[in-house]
């Protein structure tokens, strides 16, 4: 990138603007899937398994089919005529290939699994009929825990695989075994995250419209990655991709749950085509919680070889993930990243990992905001354990092992290269801001009064904006590039689009700032058009904190290319030999002359009019029009960093944890929109705190979900969350447009680690160490009782 990426050089990037989306969203004029109605639409409702694991021995839909309003009831056999089988078999060593039909044929694999689909004239009648479908089950033993799943005689979730261990990868540096054997001291630590779900406020849902005349399918759906979704949907319906249009309206949150083509949406689309009538489906809250997708439930064990000063000379990671019953993503996809980037800011040259992913009779997993969420807790939790065992100050152990900021770019033992980050600065800045120097004295004084105060520190190196090279190296098919167009109409109106899709983040605001920066117009004069696959260019969609760098970055590059063309035209119109001293500011061409910037009489509208309507006045050989489509492939990985500090007081009698202070020092590079970035930071930290302290998707031993309602599944609300202080120590990325970095997941990673480490620190006098989530009052009491 031929630029300085000096923040002060930018006129529009980094400004705080009112969100463009908010006029419609805050006045109740948002347009979500449920606000769209299609004449003649039918409603879908799914018959779901009431057993965690069972053979379907008989299925009788006769009575249900005769119920009022029922159009049809379809089963696995019907769907197999209209849809293809999903085969997920990327060439990744240690990963078993899977196949999945639209509906399960012989057996159900989890409580809430699909059995049949009822189509009726309204949802009420569809649910009435669904109750009349008679399913005869032959119950099978369910496997509900990751360790049980790995036992030799465990019931198989997917008989085709011959094993529940769907993925197993390992890695080790040359000398790690020798080092571990020779080490004086090995510190062992374990970590377990609870099963969670994404819980978007708007559940999944869609409307499929089949146009029999033009043989075209239009799918209205809240989705994060409309083009890849279109490709998969067309393929599985045996349609050409040009026969499918995906239209994404306003979306009420995704968090990773709205990327893949799941079975329900496929079935709805297939039925719209088969019936030649529009069909809609809205997942209800219970379906969303029981059967959409889950996340987390990782177990990790580290073994750190340390010297007497606490210096880590070798580290081994064992990671097991409970992936549930179905894979809509390659099963290694999430856990692998944890293993790849674990060592993060620490200087650990000798490293080994062993990562297993197992299937169980639970709802399938999907990527959830920070699929690698557990990473920083594992690493900084290990550091804290080293400090405890060696009776050292945890900050001292961090400083001893942390790479100097000047050491970057640094390549980890796994081959991952981090650059343009400053974990040392972030740590020191935070320590100073929370007055760590005096904290330990405060802590001791409080303990004498029976007040148990603790501080948790968690350094995060966040992998964002995965580029194509990363995917290629990981063996995952797909690309990390993004595509965008910017068009200036003959009237001078500016429009832009990209393949990513917002689920509420505020892309319209941020991208208008990217266009403004690249082109030289006011952000308010830029219209952003996202989410319609016939309008937006084919892009890879929103996931992995790529919205700003891949999405906004590509939009910026396209805008800059438009500016270049506009200035070439301007030079010609102004009679200049070159555009070297010209720029566009707020839509007007300016001339840098005599040490000053001077406005010319020429505006972007004048240039656009010339480009479209007076092409003979253009420079020789120049195409008419003023629009550019641009693709951009970001670096293999763009790293951000942050350091989280959480101060808690634990009431040891009740087990209640009070967060007294939460502070984060962030380096997410230059940003497009300050308040949108802040919203993401607060949201991510809140999500991590809620996940580690409250949320738990509980299955009983037989495989029944105990937490399928919002009253049972504890998600923190604003009342339970602390004020969060944010300090920026941003440094730009040297290779990305504007120096952007991703940032939307690091807050989850850091808060999980910071709060866990803080509670362990507070309870050190009782030798209680947090090694599992959620950190509920009950779980703390159970641990404290044992310590007495």
């Amino acid at each position, binding site marked *: 990138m031929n630029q300085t990426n000096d923040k002060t050089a930018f006129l529009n990037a980094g400004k705080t603007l009112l969100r463009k989306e908010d006029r419609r969203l805050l006045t109740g004029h948002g347009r979500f899937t449920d606000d769209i109605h299609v004449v003649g639409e039918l409603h879908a409702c799914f018959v779901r398994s009431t057993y965690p694991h069972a053979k379907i021995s008989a299925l009788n839909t006769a009575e249900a089919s005769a119920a009022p309003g029922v159009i049809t009831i379809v089963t696995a056999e019907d769907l197999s005529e209209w849809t293809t089988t999903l085969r997920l078999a990327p060439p990744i060593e240690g990963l078993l290939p899977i196949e999945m039909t639209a509906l399960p044929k012989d057996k159900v694999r989890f409580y809430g699994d699909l059995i049949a689909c009822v189509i009726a004239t309204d949802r*009420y009648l569809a649910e009435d009929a669904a109750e009349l479908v008679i399913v005869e089950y032959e119950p099978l033993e369910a496997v509900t825990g990751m360790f049980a799943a790995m036992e030799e005689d465990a019931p198989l979730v997917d008989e085709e695989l011959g094993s529940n261990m769907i993925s197993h990868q390992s890695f080790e540096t040359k000398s790690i075994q020798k080092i571990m054997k020779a080490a004086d001291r090995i510190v062992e630590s374990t970590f377990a995250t609870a099963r969670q779900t994404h819980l978007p406020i708007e559940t999944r849902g869609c409307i499929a419209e089949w146009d029999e005349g033009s043989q075209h399918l239009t799918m209205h759906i809240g989705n994060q990655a409309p083009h890849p979704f279109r490709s998969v949907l067309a393929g599985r319906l045996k349609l050409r991709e040009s026969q499918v249009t995906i239209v994404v309206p306003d979306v009420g949150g995704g968090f990773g749950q709205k990327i893949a083509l799941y079975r329900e949406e496929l079935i709805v689309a297939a039925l719209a085509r088969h019936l030649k009538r529009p069909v809609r489906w809205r997942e209800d*809250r219970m379906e969303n919680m029981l059967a959409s997708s889950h996340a987390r439930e990782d177990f990790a064990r580290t073994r750190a070889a340390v010297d007497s000063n606490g210096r880590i000379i070798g580290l081994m990671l064992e990671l097991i993930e409970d992936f549930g019953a179905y894979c809509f993503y390659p099963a290694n996809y999430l856990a692998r990243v944890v293993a790849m980037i674990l060592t993060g800011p620490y200087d650990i040259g000798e490293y080994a990992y062993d990562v297993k992913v197992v299937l169980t009779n639970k709802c399938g997993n999907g990527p959830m905001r920070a699929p690698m969420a557990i990473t920083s807790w594992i690493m900084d939790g290990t550091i804290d354990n080293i400090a405890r065992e060696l009776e050292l100050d945890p900050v001292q152990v961090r400083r001893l092992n942390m790479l100097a900021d000047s050491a970057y770019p640094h390549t980890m033992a796994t081959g991952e290269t981090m650059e343009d980050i400053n974990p040392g600065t972030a740590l020191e800045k935070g320590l100073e801001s929370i007055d760590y120097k005096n904290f330990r004295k405060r802590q001791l004084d409080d303990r004498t009064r029976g007040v148990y105060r603790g501080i948790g520190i968690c350094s995060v190196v966040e992998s964002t904006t995965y580029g194509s090279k990363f995917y290629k190296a990981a063996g995952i098919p797909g690309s990390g590039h993004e595509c965008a167009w910017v068009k200036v109409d003959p009237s001078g109106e500016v429009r832009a689009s990209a393949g990513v899709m917002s689920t509420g983040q505020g892309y319209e605001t941020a991208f208008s700032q990217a266009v403004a920066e690249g082109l030289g117009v006011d952000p308010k004069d830029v219209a952003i058009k996202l989410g319609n696959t016939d309008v937006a260019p084919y892009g890879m969609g929103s996931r992995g904190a790529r919205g700003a760098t891949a999405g906004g970055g590509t939009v910026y590059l396209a805008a800059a290319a438009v500016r270049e063309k506009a200035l070439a035209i301007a030079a010609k119109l102004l009679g200049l030999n070159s555009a070297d001293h010209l720029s566009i500011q707020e839509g007007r061409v300016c001339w840098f002359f005599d040490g000053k910037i001077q406005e010319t009489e020429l505006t972007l509208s004048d240039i656009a009019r010339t480009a479209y309507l007076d092409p003979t006045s253009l420079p020789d050989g120049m195409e008419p029009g003023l629009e550019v489509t641009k693709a951009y492939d970001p670096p293999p990985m763009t790293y951000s960093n942050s350091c989280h500090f959480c101060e808690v007081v634990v009431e040891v009698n*009740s087990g209640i944890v009070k967060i007294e202070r939460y502070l984060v020092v962030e380096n997410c590079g230059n940003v497009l929109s300050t308040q949108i970035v802040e919203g993401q930071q607060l949201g991510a930290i809140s999500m991590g705190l809620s996940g580690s302290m409250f949320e738990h998707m509980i299955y009983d031993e037989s495989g029944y979900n105990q937490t399928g*309602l919002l009253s049972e599944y504890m998600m923190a609300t604003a009342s*339970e969350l602390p004020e969060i202080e944010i300090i920026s120590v941003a440094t730009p990325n040297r290779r990305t447009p504007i120096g952007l970095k991703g940032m939307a997941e690091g807050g989850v990673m850091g808060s999980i680690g910071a709060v866990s480490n803080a509670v362990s620190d507070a309870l050190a006098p009782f030798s209680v160490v947090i090694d599992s989530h959620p950190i509920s009052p009950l779980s703390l009491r*159970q641990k404290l009782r044992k310590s007495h």
Partner: protein
Amino acid sequence: MKPSPFTYHDPHSLDEALALLNQYGEEARIIAGGQSLVAMMNLRLAQPDHLIDINNIPVLNGIECQDRLLQIGALTSHQDILQSELVRQSCPILTNAAAHIGHYAIRQRGTIGGSLSHADPAAEWPMIAILLDGEMEIAQLSGEKRTLGARDFIQSIYTTDLAPEEILTKISFPCLEENEGWAFKPFARRRGDYFIVAVAACLTLDQSGRIKRLRLCLGGMEATAIRLDEIEQGSIAHLPDENWIREVAKAACNEGNPVDDHNADVEYRRELVEILVTDALQDAFKGTQRG
């Protein structure tokens, strides 16, 4: 999450409502705020054929105080109770309890009569009614009324003495005495949730500063809230000192027959009772010292 089919009735008088109830019996359910019933219907845990909406029967709504008896119409919303100056003056523990119910939207629709008829063992009103020995006024088709104390009215989890043809019309609470100390201490993971364990207490002292009357109630330890009669009796004429509080808390935590669930095991419920009773009695004692 759509209810099964039902017929909706919109009576405009109590007699009309009672006639409908008499006609449809167990096939009918009364809907007031619907904050529990509608969720149960959407989950198809309740599938009434007839829904009798009592929202257009104004006589069921309202708060008045006569002869030191606070009378609240069954249709009165939690929010109206929370905002009532009359309630705050005569029985402030109700104001405090109302503030813990759900969230604003829930409090606007949910009613005290609905909550009591639903008899959720983790809800505020059944517990407060048992603490204060509230009286339930129940209307019958014959035009007769019967009244029943809270402890007889609330029989078990989601179970009351209400017959299918009857309507709970009014709840009366004796006003708190002057200088009566009180406390309501629910424990929930999140603001607005049903409590896991709760303790409520009212305390009056005689002129010598000894205990004249203690009312102490635990929620979350049984299928209904329980009054600790023995402890209440045994506390009379005691000095309300730290020692007494400690003893009561220790004794109270052995009461009830709680269950294990994923929110709390038996031991944790007992631990919470000890903490909350201590808290409640300290607050109640402070309350007695206000005058």
